[in-house]
């Protein structure tokens, strides 16, 4: 049994962030009913990588969900939504601010049908503040949130994280907030409004920088791959790539030198303590270390240092990470039969629960794949469905 079995989510989210939130809920058993614009569908359906007309990106985020193709801006469309919402627990959306209102689907309107709905919204800047109308694309959010300022080298430009961290993080916060609201509703019977902003989300994970500014009045420059308090904690050149190490005590430093045969460095007075290693890191120690490591392969360095029980990891390419035994042992790549793409392998579920495990065993829905199922359940007849299709109110796969 899954923990969210029986929870019904009417899901207006699309693209990335909001869809990640509802993906997490679906992985753990919630019935997630995507409301997709008839004729067009979720914009992620057009995101690379694609095979023919179908997107693996869409499949990854939307596995296990249901799809109704609907024109929510019509009276008939709204009527269908209101009927669906009557017994729903959660409504999710990640539209531009004001969009749900414009469609006649504001929190106030929805509450008239279902007073205890949990209405969860996510967008770039939230439902309040001078920037609430601004659309937040991932690059802009990473830029504005201080996240990029903190990433990269002091003598280089601010750097974006490869994946869309703003979306991933805010989506995870949205799912977590929904859980809080479900718990609250279980105890009090009341639903509520949830408001998640990508800016707020990224701001909350900047680690020590905001506190440093508060206490010191200034913030040190970004530090690249090293870490100010521990030395050496860095990513070093190997002969075929790079390897990351974390040597946090003087004892570990000695073992590190022994493992790599660096007797001269071990004996060097300048490098005896963590603090002084830090002082000399950029002015000699790093170069001395790389003179040694750049002659060895990254996986060999990893093997040597692991034997000495020191924290280290090669910089794996994504393909290498995918091949690792650990990823396999943790089921982090799952192959499913997707109705559009056929057999496809997508990232698995990170959270492992012993009694109520999550996961998925199917792909993502076709556009409007479940329209007929849900509308019939609501009492619509075949004739009515036919008319709704002809009038482009709904789409059935």
């Amino acid at each position, binding site marked *: 049994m899954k923990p969210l079995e029986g929870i019904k989510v009417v899901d207006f989210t699309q693209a990335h962030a909001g869809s990640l939130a509802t993906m997490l809920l679906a992985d753990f058993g919630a019935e997630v009913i995507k409301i997709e614009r008839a004729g067009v569908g979720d914009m992620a359906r057009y995101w690379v990588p694609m095979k023919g007309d179908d997107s693996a990106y869409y499949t990854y985020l939307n596995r296990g969900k249901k799809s109704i193709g609907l024109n929510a801006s019509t009276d008939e469309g709204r009527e269908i939504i209101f009927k669906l919402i009557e017994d729903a627990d959660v409504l999710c959306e990640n539209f531009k601010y004001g969009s749900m209102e414009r469609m006649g689907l504001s929190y106030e309107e929805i509450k008239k049908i279902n007073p205890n709905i949990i209405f969860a919204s996510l967008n770039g800047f939230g439902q309040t503040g001078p920037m609430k109308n601004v659309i937040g694309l991932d690059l802009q959010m990473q830029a504005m949130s201080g996240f990029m300022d903190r990433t990269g080298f002091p003598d280089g430009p601010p750097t974006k*994280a490869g994946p869309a961290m703003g979306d991933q*993080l805010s989506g995870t916060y949205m799912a977590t907030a929904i859980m809080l609201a479900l718990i609250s509703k279980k105890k009090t019977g009341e639903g509520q409004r949830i408001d998640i902003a990508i800016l707020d989300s990224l701001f909350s994970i900047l680690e020590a920088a905001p506190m440093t500014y*508060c206490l010191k009045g200034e913030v040190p420059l970004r530090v690249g791959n090293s870490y100010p308090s521990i030395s050496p904690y860095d990513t070093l050149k190997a002969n075929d790539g790079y390897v990351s190490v974390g040597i946090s005590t003087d004892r570990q430093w000695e073992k590190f030198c022994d493992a790599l045969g660096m007797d001269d460095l071990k004996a060097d007075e300048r490098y005896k303590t963590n603090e002084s290693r830090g002082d000399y890191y950029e002015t000699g120690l790093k170069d001395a270390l790389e003179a040694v490591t750049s002659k060895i392969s990254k996986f060999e360095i990893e093997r040597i240092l692991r034997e000495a029980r020191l924290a280290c990891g090669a910089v794996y390419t994504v393909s290498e*990470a995918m091949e690792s035994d650990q990823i396999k042992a943790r089921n982090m790549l799952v192959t499913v039969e997707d109705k559009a793409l056929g057999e496809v392998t997508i990232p698995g579920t990170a959270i492992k629960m012993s009694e109520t495990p999550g996961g998925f065993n199917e792909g993502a829905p076709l556009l409007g794949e479940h329209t007929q199922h849900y509308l019939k359940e609501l009492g619509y007849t075949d004739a009515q469905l036919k008319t709704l299709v002809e009038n482009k109110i709904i789409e059935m796969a």
Partner: protein
Amino acid sequence: MKVLEGVTVIDFTQAYSGPFCTMQLADFGARVIKIERRGLGDQSREWTPFKDGQSGYYAAINRNKEGVSLDINTEEGKEIIKRMVKDADIVVENFKVGTLDKMGLGYEELKKVNPEIIFASISGFGQNGPLKDLAAYDNVVQAMSGLMEMTGFPDDVPTKVGPAIGDNFTGLNMCFAILMAYFNKLNTGKGQRLDVAMMDAIFGILESPILFKTLLNEDSSRVGNSDVTLVPYDVYPCKDGYFSAGLPGEAGWDRFCAAIEMPELIEDPRLITNDLRCQHYAVVTPIITEFFLKKTKAELAEIFTSYKIPNAPVSTIPELIHHPQIAAREMLVEMVDPGVGKYLAINNPMKLDKTPAVMAFGAPLLGQDTEKVLKAFGYTDEQIKAFAEKEVI
């Protein structure tokens, strides 16, 4: 009402990933009892920045928790833990795999005391698999997951994401897991074991490179601040820092050219479609950069907003902290911390209108609440005195 009122969490976590997780629970009213090593405390108490000898790093992620200082290597210490777990809902830990088992405080032992305890473990690589015993730092996980390979500039060093997302993103995922387990327990009465690995959490959100490999057998690497499928969509140096602007699709090139005062580029045959612009990234980027270098972030924001082109400055921390949007969102709350004194706490980003997060009190000094908590669990003054004399607390 606070949504997690009445929920008791026995929190063994330290450093970043675990405390970030339990902070979310504490923010929403759970009673989070932080168990710290007697005499030493959470290792983050030694992390910068410092004020008056106290760590701001520690303060920032341990607000709203109660602090108990205990030697869990002693028999009495273990008994105290079991006494607390008996009445608790959740145990959270981020020790190296097997640590609590060896101390006789693992899941199986604690289930004898409280069969329905929710036992949550955060680790570098998980509770199973060939790497489960490996020490994990954030940079090691970023390296091994493929994240570092995907961050930074082509032909340049793979780059660590500055903030330790290996830690905090994993902690957030565990919070979500704990809430699901707690919800399940409300429904079924049953507890369970939770296992979240930093490696899995980060690998799981790499998106594109995994999908390109599995669908098309294509390898990917880092692309800097741009997007392989969109041009222009980048971060450019400007007069007073860096600024990002971009078109999220095919439309808008004419507006972009007007914005950078180069209307002649609209019809340039090399740049007329998004695909062509992608091919000629090296041609168009210096032209755009030349314009940006003449303008400040504020000027560029005005220009690009007027042309309805998505844009944002690369904010520095001071700019962000003083930004009116951050203020409007109440993302900074003045707190008085027993260690570092007055500071601005970063509010919880999960905004729930009926059961909001509350920044109730600062992070505990080492052992601050030991006596109070032990009394709440039924220990007498005499017993507490004896524990102190034997250096159990």
